[in-house]
């Protein structure tokens, strides 16, 4: 290698940046941050913040004892849940503690919605929990209708329930695929995507969009469903059971899969309630709490279904719970199509809604749990405060509780069974 003359060498851009930063800090009188102290000779520590811990819990996680190590399962994930960072403290292979670091996908949707009209808000909330966009729109629609004091027409409510259950079918179907993928099975996710593709084509036929639907309006839905669509739905309905059971056949009775999921990540019912878990995760731990039955919204009090629970609360139970809920959703779809009345699909509301000042709370059962919206109106065209409570956000608190004692390899399995979607977690 030829020697480079220091006089004529082109400086590395990072050196220029560092020099400039130092100069700025000196000029402005800011003290530069101290670089991290390396722990082992030559090895860099990852995950330890370069400042002392500010809270008790942070000190607990980031203080290493003899034989412990911090492993950073970084924002770029090999799994499909989204960008999330898990700092895992391990002792050889066993996880001792875990700290999730969030905020990589934070878009400030709540603040954004304070400057949007009520109808525009319904388009902004879609990309939160993007796998279940219809539920994201349903909760604000309920809250805004309470604020405005109207009810959607019956046919609109039936269509809403139909698209919401379709959304639930493909969201749970994909979760099966994600769980298998995080364990190394390459095929179930592709079968799940076949199922999703067919379902999403149906939803595109209704709403014009494949993923972020923009279908709900305050007072109803945007478009009606035609009879041709209903016959297309029947064709789909005849095929979907088979495609789901094909996928199930690869996973449910597979020895390797059951050995890796039974008895893993057990969450007891009481702990789940204390942690605020909801949805299939809570029901798989034995607590029969389903918002559709607990506080019925839309037309769920006219449909006949039971709340399914499993008692073991492990990864396998959460998986079985979702498979059972797919079948339940298909049963609900059948009833909805049977009972759908004729009528208008949107109440008469003006273009820009100005509800009277007040507060309203609307909650729905999304595939991940209790999804709710708390909206405050001040009489103007924009909501004064628009708060969304996302179930995946709260469910993530379960990770530091469930993980200690398991191996690193189980982190992916347990997280996939909780089925978080980072768009909802980070809003």
């Amino acid at each position, binding site marked *: 290698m030829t020697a480079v003359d220091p006089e004529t060498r082109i400086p590395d851009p990072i050196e220029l940046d560092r020099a400039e930063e130092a*100069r700025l800090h000196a000029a402005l009188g800011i003290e530069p941050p101290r670089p991290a102290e390396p722990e082992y000779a030559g090895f860099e520590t990852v995950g330890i913040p370069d400042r002392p811990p500010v*809270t008790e819990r942070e000190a607990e996680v980031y203080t290493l004892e003899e034989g412990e190590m911090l492993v950073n399962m970084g924002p770029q994930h090999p799994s499909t849940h989204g960008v999330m960072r898990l700092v895992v403290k391990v002792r050889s292979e066993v996880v001792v503690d875990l700290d999730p670091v969030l905020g990589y996908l934070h878009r400030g949707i*709540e603040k954004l919605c304070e400057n949007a009209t009520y109808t525009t808000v319904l388009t902004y909330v879609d990309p939160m929990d993007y796998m279940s966009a219809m539920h994201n729109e349903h909760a604000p629609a309920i809250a805004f209708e309470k604020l405005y004091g109207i009810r959607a027409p019956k046919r609109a409510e039936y269509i809403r329930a139909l698209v919401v259950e379709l959304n639930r079918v493909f969201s749970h179907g994909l979760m099966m695929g994600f769980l298998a993928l995080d364990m190394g099975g390459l095929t179930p996710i592709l079968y799940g995507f076949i199922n999703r593709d067919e379902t999403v084509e149906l939803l595109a036929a209704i709403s014009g969009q494949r993923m972020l639907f923009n279908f709900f309006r305050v007072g109803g839905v945007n478009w009606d469903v035609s009879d041709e669509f209903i016959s297309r739905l029947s064709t789909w309905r005849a095929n979907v059971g088979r495609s789901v059971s094909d996928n199930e056949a690869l996973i449910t009775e597979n020895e390797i899969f059951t050995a890796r999921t039974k008895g893993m990540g057990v969450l007891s019912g009481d702990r789940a309630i204390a*942690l605020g878990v909801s949805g299939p995760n809570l029901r798989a731990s034995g607590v029969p709490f389903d918002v559709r039955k607990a*506080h019925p919204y839309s037309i769920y009090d006219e449909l006949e279904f039971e709340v399914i629970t499993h008692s073991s609360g492990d990864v396998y139970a959460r998986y079985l719970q979702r498979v059972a809920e797919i079948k339940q959703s298909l049963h609900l779809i059948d009833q909805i199509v049977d009972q759908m009345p004729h009528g208008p699909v949107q109440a008469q509301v003006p273009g820009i809604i100005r509800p009277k000042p007040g507060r309203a*709370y609307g909650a729905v059962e999304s595939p991940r749990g209790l999804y709710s919206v708390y909206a405050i109106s001040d009489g103007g065209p924009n909501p004064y405060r628009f708060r969304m*409570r996302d179930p995946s956000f709260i469910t993530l608190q379960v990770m530091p509780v469930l993980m200690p004692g398991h191996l690193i390899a189980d982190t992916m399995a347990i997280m996939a069974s909780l089925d978080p979607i980072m768009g909802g977690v980070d809003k």
Partner: protein
Amino acid sequence: MAGALVRALTDRFPELAATLWTDEDTVELQIDGSRNVELLRRLRDDPELHFWYLADAAAVDYGTTEHFEVVYHLYSDLHPAWLRVRARVDRAEPHLPSITGLWEGAMFHEREMYDMMGIVFDGNRDLRRIYMSPDYRSFPQRRDFLLPDDAADSSAAGVNPLERPETWDLSRFRDAVTESDEAAAKGKP
């Protein structure tokens, strides 16, 4: 629909009856912030009320001259209505007892309220930022935090040196900067 619940609440908390509000599916109570743990504990543990599920904990900012509010939504299987508890917090000194002792799952809710509004929960073991980076110095969801196109007036303005043109140093682009550019930078036509 909420009649039984209203009666039960007015029996147990007569001092709150004045500000109790209800419509067909929600009952609302208003309290001062410091009483939140006591009230929520009684709501949860009373066998006739039995509000065992914390559905939501949100923070609302009523304006720069007004107060904050922390709003809890609770669910009970004995009563079909949602219960909303609005806890009033002083804006100048936004401190509130933490309910993580009652529901472990309130931890992330309180971290988010701290991060976005700046409300400090006493007794919370892990009150640090959750969405914003740990060294962020402002509270985005307050009413006086302006959106990025008004970033120059927000309380987080100027933290980043790139937002302050006087700190820019163009000397390393000396070759590329021509005389007309220099003249334009100095404001001459």
